[in-house]
C-alpha cells in the first residue's frame, strides 16, 4: 500500500471511476469551461431551430454527444485563405511524418525515463517487444479480457484526455494519434488499479485472477 500515495498524484481518478455513459461525457461545468475545446457542446440547440436554421450549419451540431466524432465541416469556414489552410495541412502531415512520434516511457522503479518513436513500429507486437528489450522485462500476451494477465508488468499510456489506458485496447492507428506518454506499471499496480476510495475498498495483494475479481466486484 506504500506505493499508493505516490500514484494518487499521477492517476486521474475520474478516469478510473466506473460509471455508465460514453467516455468524454458527463464533465462538470467547471471542467467544461476549462477545457472548453474538448466537449464543444453547443447550448440552446432549440434556439437555433427557432431561427429557421440553415441546413448547412445544423449537421455541425447534431453529433455533440458522440466524442470525438468529427463535426461536419462548413464550406469556407473558418475564413482563412486556402493557401494558408493547405499549408497548415501539409505542415501537419509533414511534421508528423518526419519528426516521428517521440513519447516518454516511464517504468516504475526506474531512475530515469526513456523516449521512443512510435512511428517506427508497425503495431503492438513490435512495440511491446521493443519495450521488453529496452527495460529488460517480459510483458507477455495481450488479451482483451485479461489485459496482460500473467505478467508482472502492464504497459499503459496517457491519452489526449489525460486518462490512463491499457495499451492494446484500441486499433493501432487510433493509439498512435491518442498516445501522449507511456508508463509501464509494475507489480500490484499492474494487476489492479486503485479506484475511488468511497466505492471500493483497496485491495492489497491479488492472485493472478485479481483482474477478473475486481471487475466482478464493481459490477
Amino acid at each position: 500500500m506504500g506505493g499508493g500515495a505516490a500514484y494518487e498524484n499521477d492517476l486521474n481518478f475520474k478516469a478510473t471511476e466506473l460509471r455508465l455513459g460514453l467516455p468524454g461525457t458527463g464533465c462538470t461545468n467547471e471542467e467544461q469551461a476549462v477545457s472548453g475545446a474538448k466537449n464543444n457542446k453547443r447550448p440552446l440547440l432549440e434556439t437555433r431551430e427557432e431561427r429557421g436554421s440553415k441546413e448547412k450549419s445544423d449537421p455541425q451540431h447534431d453529433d455533440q454527444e458522440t466524442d470525438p466524432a468529427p463535426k461536419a465541416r462548413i464550406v469556407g469556414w473558418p475564413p482563412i485563405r486556402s493557401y494558408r489552410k493547405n499549408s497548415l495541412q501539409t505542415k501537419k502531415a509533414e511534421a508528423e511524418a518526419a519528426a516521428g512520434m517521440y513519447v516518454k516511457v516511464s517504468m516504475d522503479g526506474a531512475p530515469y525515463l526513456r523516449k521512443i518513436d512510435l512511428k517506427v513500429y508497425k503495431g503492438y507486437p513490435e512495440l511491446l517487444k521493443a519495450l521488453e528489450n529496452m527495460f529488460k522485462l517480459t510483458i507477455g500476451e495481450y488479451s482483451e479480457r485479461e489485459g496482460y494477465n500473467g505478467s508482472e508488468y502492464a504497459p499503459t499510456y496517457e491519452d489526449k484526455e489525460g486518462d490512463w489506458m491499457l495499451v492494446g485496447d484500441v486499433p493501432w492507428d487510433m493509439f498512435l494519434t491518442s498516445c501522449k506518454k507511456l508508463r509501464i506499471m509494475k507489480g500490484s499496480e499492474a494487476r489492479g488499479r486503485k479506484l475511488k476510495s468511497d466505492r471500493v475498498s483497496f485491495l492489497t495483494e491479488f492472485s493472478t485472477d485479481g483482474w477478473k475479481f475486481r471487475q466482478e466486484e464493481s459490477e
Partner: protein
Amino acid sequence: MNYFPDEVLEHIFDFVTSQRDRNSVSQVCKPWYKIESSSRQKVFVGNCYAISPERVIERFPGLKSITLKGKPHFADFNLVPPDWGGFVYPWIEAFARNNMGLEELKLKRMIISDECLELISRSFANFKSLVLVSCEGFSTDGLAAIASNCSFLRELDLQENDVEDHRGHWLSCFPDTCTSLVSLNFACLKGDVNLAALERLVARSPNLRSLRLNHAVPLDILQKILMRAPHLVDLGVGSYVHDPDSETYNKLVTALQKCKSVRSLSGFLEAAPQCLSAFHLICPNLTSLNLSYAPGIHGTELRKLIRHCRKLQRLWILDCIGDEGLEVVASTCKDLQEIRVFPSDPFVGNAAVTEVGLVALSSGCPKLHSILYFCQQMTNAALITVAKNCPNFTRFRLCILDPTKPDAVTNQPLDEGFGAIVHSCKGLRRLSMSGRLTDKVFLYIGMYAEQLEMISIAFAGDTDKGMQYLLNGCKKLRKLEIRDCPFGNAALLMDVGKYETMRSLWMSSCNVTLGGCKSLAKKMPMLNVEIINETDQMDISADDRQKAEKMFLYRTLAGRRKDAPEFVWTL
C-alpha cells in the same frame, strides 16, 4: 489658379499622391481634370471588371503603376469556383498594344498565365516591380521570363500564390548584369531553388533590402546569404528544421550580429525552436514579426522570443501562442498596432485562444488599431472591455471557430459586445463578426459605424431588417459580403441606388431569389448582377422563386463582362 501654366499645376498635383485626393482634384474643373489625368502615374482599380483597360489608358496615358483586384474576397475561402474570372491578360495586352510605359504591376486574386508574364517581360522596357498576392495560373516558367528579360527589375514579391513549380531554374535566369534587386520574396514557392544561383544573385545585389526565402533554403545557406547581405531590412527565413551542428549555428550567430538593419522577420517555415536564441539578437529592433507559418514555434521558446521584441508594431501569430502567450505580448509590446492570430488547426475546430487573450491585448497595447482574431469563444463583457480600452480600432475582425456560438458565459447573443465596439471605435473602417448575432447588432452598426467601408457577415441576423439597418445606416459602405443569413428580396431591393455607391455586394446562402436579383438587375443597368450557378438543373429561365445560391453584384462602366464562364449568369 487659372493663371498658372499647366506645368505649375502639374507640379503642385505631384504632391497629391493618394488616389482619393487625386480623384477629388480631377473633379474641380475641366482644366484640372485634364492636367491631373494626363499626369497621374499610379492607378488603383479595386475591381478589374468595373472599367475597361482601354478606358483607363485613354484617361491616364502617363500611367506607370497599376494595382488590379479580381475575384471577390470570399474566393479566398473557396466560395467561388475556379475559372470564375479575374484574368489580367486583357489588361496587359491592352497596355502593350498602346505602348504604355508600365513599370509596376500589383495584382490581387487574379489569374495570370505564363504567357502573360512573358508578355510583360518583353513589352515594358522599364518594368521594375511585380507584386502578386493570392494569384494563380502561372508557373516558375513565367517567373523565369521575368527574371531573364526585365533588366531593371527591382521588386519580385510573391505572396501566398498558388504557383506550379517546375523546379528551381528560374533563379538562374537573372542575368549577371542584373544588379538592381531591392526586394525578392519567393516564400510561397513549393519547390527547390538553385541555391548557388541564389547566393550569387544576393552577392551582386547591393540594394537588396527585402528577402523572403522558401522552405527549400536551409540554415547553412541562410547564414551565407546573411553574410553577403548585412543591410537587409526585411528577412523571411526559410527552413530552420535541423538541429544545426555548432559550427553552422555559430556562423549564423556571427552573421546575425552583422544584420543591424533587420526590422521585419518572417518565415521559419519548418522550424525546430531550439535555435531561436540566435534571433534574440535581432528581436530588440523588430517592428514586424510574422510567425503565422511556423507551427513549430510555440510554448516557452515562443514566449522567450516575444519578450525580446519590445518595439514590435505588427505581429502575425498562430493561436498556439495561447492566452498566456498573448499576455506576454501585452506586457512586452507596448507599441503594438496590428495583430493577427490565426488558427493552427482549423479542421479540428479548437482554437487555443479565448476572450482572455483579447482583453489582455486591449489593456496592454493602447496603440492597437487593427486586429484579426480567430478564437474558441467570446463574451459580451470582454468585447465591451476591449471597446473601452481601445477606441482606436480601424479594423476589427473576430472569428469564433463555431460561427453561431453565443456569449460563452451568459449564452446571450454577442449583439451588445459588437455594439460596444462600433459605438466606441468611431474610426472603424472594416468589421468582421461571428458568433450568435441577431438583428439588433445591425441596428447598432447602422447607428454608430459611420466610417465603416467594409463588412463581412456570416450566420447572423433574424430578418430582412438586419440588412436594411446596415444599408440605411452605413453611408460610407463600399463592400458588403454576406453568407448564410436570412436576408431576402425585401432587404436586397430596399434601396437599389445604394449599390452604385458601393464597389460590390456578395450574398450567398441567403434568401434572395432569382426573381429578386432579376428585378434588381432591371432597375440598375449600371450594375452587373451575376449569379453563380453550381447546380446542373437550373437555367436562366428557371423559376424565379428559386433561391439564388450565390450572387455577386458590382457597379461597372464596362457593361457585362465577356469572359464569364458558363456557370456565371449576368442578369
